[in-house]
């Protein structure tokens, strides 16, 4: 079984979010980019664990994006992916998912494992789109994943409990916290990443871009915090009850 791990590139969690060109473009000046944490910490690491346990023969990372994103791909190789693919294009989640589905189909991957959402666009749509394009089974928000022959067993937190699921391959899984633990790239892995294959693929024309961002608005902070004395808790309860009307 070969595992395909799609990775997104996102601004570092501490990055200052601002926009340029009349609020139509994300301002990437001075921003450090990282692999989307859900893709890296959970999906990629679990895929590598499966390979290390002899349950997968190969782990490939795939990224849809321009050349300047290659350092992010190299980081995934440093963490331990065997090889990488970069689809040389960019677009909305339908475009990205279409490219991933297309590559997976043409190259015999049977498990696609990615993060539940990106911390940049928070759509949580890519995994479902990929599954839809491929007409494969889909398990979203999985917190555990194991392989027993051709059957994948999974856990998923939902409705205040845990679903235990099983599915045959092929399968698309979106990973949530709990599936694996973040791995710090080993220095040896970083050195080895240099020589691992990174294939650049021209995007398929079958998957157009359907949506467009017209403009961004930075979030407004809250208005000044009302400080309440610790000896006057009743006042807080009263405010929550009569003013905020939340209790």
């Amino acid at each position: 079984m070969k595992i395909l791990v799609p990775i997104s590139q996102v601004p570092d969690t501490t990055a200052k979010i601002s926009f340029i060109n009349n609020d139509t473009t994300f301002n990437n000046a001075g921003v450090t980019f990282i692999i989307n944490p859900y893709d890296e910490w959970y999906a990629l690491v679990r895929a590598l664990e499966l390979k290390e346990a002899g349950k997968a023969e190969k782990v490939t990372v795939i990224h849809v994006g321009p050349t300047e994103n290659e350092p992010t791909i190299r980081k995934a190789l440093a963490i331990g992916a065997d090889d990488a693919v970069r689809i040389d294009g960019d677009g909305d989640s339908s475009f990205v998912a279409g490219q991933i589905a297309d590559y997976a189909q043409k190259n015999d991957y049977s498990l696609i494992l990615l993060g539940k959402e990106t911390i940049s666009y928070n759509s949580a749509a890519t995994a479902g789109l990929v599954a839809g394009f491929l007409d494969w089974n889909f398990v979203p928000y999985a917190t555990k994943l194991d392989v027993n022959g051709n059957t994948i067993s999974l856990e998923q937190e939902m409705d205040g409990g845990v679903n235990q699921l099983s599915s045959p391959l092929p399968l698309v899984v979106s990973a949530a916290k709990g599936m694996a633990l973040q791995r710090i790239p080993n220095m040896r892995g970083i050195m080895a990443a240099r020589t691992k294959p990174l294939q650049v693929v021209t995007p398929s024309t079958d998957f157009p871009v359907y949506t467009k961002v017209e403009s961004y608005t930075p979030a407004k902070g809250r208005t000044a915090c009302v400080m309440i004395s610790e000896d006057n808790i009743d006042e807080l309860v009263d405010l929550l009850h009569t003013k905020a009307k939340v209790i």
Partner: protein
Amino acid sequence: MAATKTKSIKGGEFLIKETAAADIFIPEQWNDEQLMLKKTCEDFLNQEVYPYLDRIDSLEEGLMSSIVEKAGGLGILAMNVPEEYGGLDLDFVTGMLTSEVMGAGHSAAVAIMAHTGIGTLPILYYGNEEQKKKYIPKLASGEWKGSYCLTEPNAGSDANSGKTKATLSADGKHYILNGQKMWITNAGFADVYTVFAKIDDDKKLSAFIVERGYEGLVLNTEEKKMGIKGSSTRQIFFNDCKVPVENLLSERENGFKIALNILNIGRIKLGGAAIGAAKAIIQHSIKYANEREQFGRAISKYGAIRYKLAEQAIKTYASESALYRASQNIDDAVNSLVEGGLEFAEAKLKGIEQFAVECAILKVHGSETLDYVADEGVQIYGGMGYSAEAPMERSYRDARINRIFEGTNEINRLLIVDLILKRAMKGELDLMGPAQAVAQELTSVPDFGGLGNNNLFDYEKEQIKKLKKAILLVAGAAVQKLMQTLTKEEEIVMNIADMAIEVYVAESTLLRVEKVVDTFGEQAAGEKIDIARVYLSEATDNIWKSGKDALNSFVDGDELRMMLMGLKRYTKQEPLNIKEARQRIALKLINENKYDF
């Protein structure tokens, strides 16, 4: 690793030669791979060290050794070890980058630096093949931890006066060690100790590889220290400790040389670690200054605080500039020695030894920068700076040791001047010619020809040249007047050392910023230009003061007046609005809420 080849300049030659900006390595040019290695070290500190600082400082059983093992698992201990012994064989500059980052790790930084440095390198550089094969892979992986036993209760800076004795056993199979070692870092959990002792009545030390399990090795309790409380520091007693004869490291009486050469590396690495620690403190300081409000405004809005933030950044950036300039010089020297046919260990040692002056400069400047930054960090935190609940208190205490170990800063200052003078005597460094030229210039009419002012840094480069003349003036006069007694006039030696340190760091900073401007443009260089100018201005004042103090102590009459006039001429400055420059530097830190120079 993509390293910019630089033209070779020999150690100490910065005093008499000019360096082109293009020929130095600048941290602005780390490649993606180096940045990833750096990130791994940062992630390691964030995940494995920072959450446990209190537990580390309480010397929790097994914690530090597990941290060292985890570092080993990530390859952090194997950076400068050759591949054949399980290492990564990174170049010196890249290894320095990882040392710099790890330097922010408080006690864990000390444990890891001691392990990879003095704990591993004596065997790596001086061990025979069997010794290297046996110990190095396990040290590089962290399975075994290393330690180094040189200091004794009555032999600190004067290391060769140690009393620990080694005698050959009757059957000739063992050396029997007797004596006491003190301030031994990693003592509590190390598996392998490099121990220095004199065989019989030798004049000089020999070195031995001693394993923890050897009979007769006894550990005392943990020392109670001001800082780096989580670093295991103990006395070790050798009571008829039996060490197999094959564990003699290198040759008999070669130990003192080993000790000194290993210390050269330790010094520059300490300079690097100090930069990492300083950056972490600046980071905290900026964030706190932006968050803490007084009189209705963040304290980062006040000039007194901005001054501190700017000075923290200026000194750190300057020291870092010199650090990587020297590190690249060492790489180049080692590479050319290897090309010339020397084998790995010898080339490394020789290459580093060539830059022993710079290593000592970086030790002193790095540790004093860190102490300055930590002290002002406490001050920026105000009352919270004194509270053990906030990070400054630990940073302040932990910083202090750096001026003491790896040779006190006083010993290192003496060493800087001593090495320079010895090289001059041996003809390796032509100081006398330039010094005489300067003396000549004093009696001639000053050249009032204005500067071309065609290029951004024309004035500053001219200034650096004059500062070098100032040093040659003072040092030349000191050598001439005091002759053999100079080395005993320690105050004067300190003055000269301070001048040399300042000019090396100021020049390195200027060269770095010049290269940044040449590579990325003036706009991208931004406030770095201010940093170079402010540092140079302060260095100029310091050099004037050190030089004046020195001259006043051994010259008099008309000759003194003439020399002081000359010194003044070489340290004269054009006006610089240093307040506005510092404001710009501080504003960048404050607006970005981080140190990102």
